[in-house]
């Protein structure tokens, strides 16, 4: 049985939960003047980018057994940045970016 896992920073973008590899997070900033608004700066592992979110939920360790591929029917209906996997846990479902 696999024991590999990934530590995720889980954020609520106002519609859904998203998970980002904690190792890729540069920092999280609170957006001034916007209560509940945060900016997650990413790029420690790859290209730098920023993601706006409503709330930072926290970090979650996701086991390999809780990771599923993104259904093709969804992947081709998401323009722009596409998730690389779906986290499927008893606590909820996250799209992993």
């Amino acid at each position, binding site marked *: 049985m696999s024991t590999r896992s990934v530590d995720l920073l889980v954020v609520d*973008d*106002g*519609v*859904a*939960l*998203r998970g980002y590899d904690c190792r890729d997070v540069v920092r999280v900033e609170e957006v001034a003047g916007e209560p509940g608004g945060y900016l997650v700066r990413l790029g420690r592992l790859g290209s730098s980018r920023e993601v706006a979110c409503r709330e930072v939920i926290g970090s979650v360790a996701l086991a390999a057994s809780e990771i*599923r*591929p*993104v*259904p*093709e*029917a*969804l992947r*081709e*209906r*998401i*323009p*722009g940045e596409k998730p690389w996997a*779906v986290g*499927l846990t008893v606590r*909820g*479902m996250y*799209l992993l970016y």
Partner: protein
Amino acid sequence: MVSTSGVSPLDETREELLREASFSTEASGREKAQEETGPARSLLVFFLGVEGFAVDLAHVRRVLRPDRIARVSGAAPEVLGLMNCQGEVLCVLDLRRILSSGKETAPPAATEGKFIVVLRHGEKEAGFLVDAVRDVMELSASSVHAVLDSVDPSRARLFEGTLAYGGQFVGLLSPSACLNP
């Protein structure tokens, strides 16, 4: 020689031969009819409001009641979200929106009391939210007619044909076209 019933053995033999001939003629007629009408197709009939639709049962993997559907931000409007389907992630699509070809701007459909018909074509699979699942029917391929001219051309690509069901026309959906955006 005449039997006590008044029917000669020759007549009995002839009658038997005729019965057999008639049986084999009927059987070959049935085969011929099947050749003419094509093999039977099994279809699942379901409804969106008062409008009926059918899909070939060969592409139906399962029919489910909607469970908790996780929304997906930034996806196309027909994407209702993702559902945990026995440990697999199922993408659930709003068939009503797909059929409206993006013209419908109503908020996402409520899922209560509805069904999800999971279709598969090739490697692609998705669940389609429908209002009611009505019937499984068998009919010959010749009972499927061309898509009605009155169907909007942008919508017509989603159909394989039309058939009669319960006194109304029902659109036979193309699983491939419905699964591909």
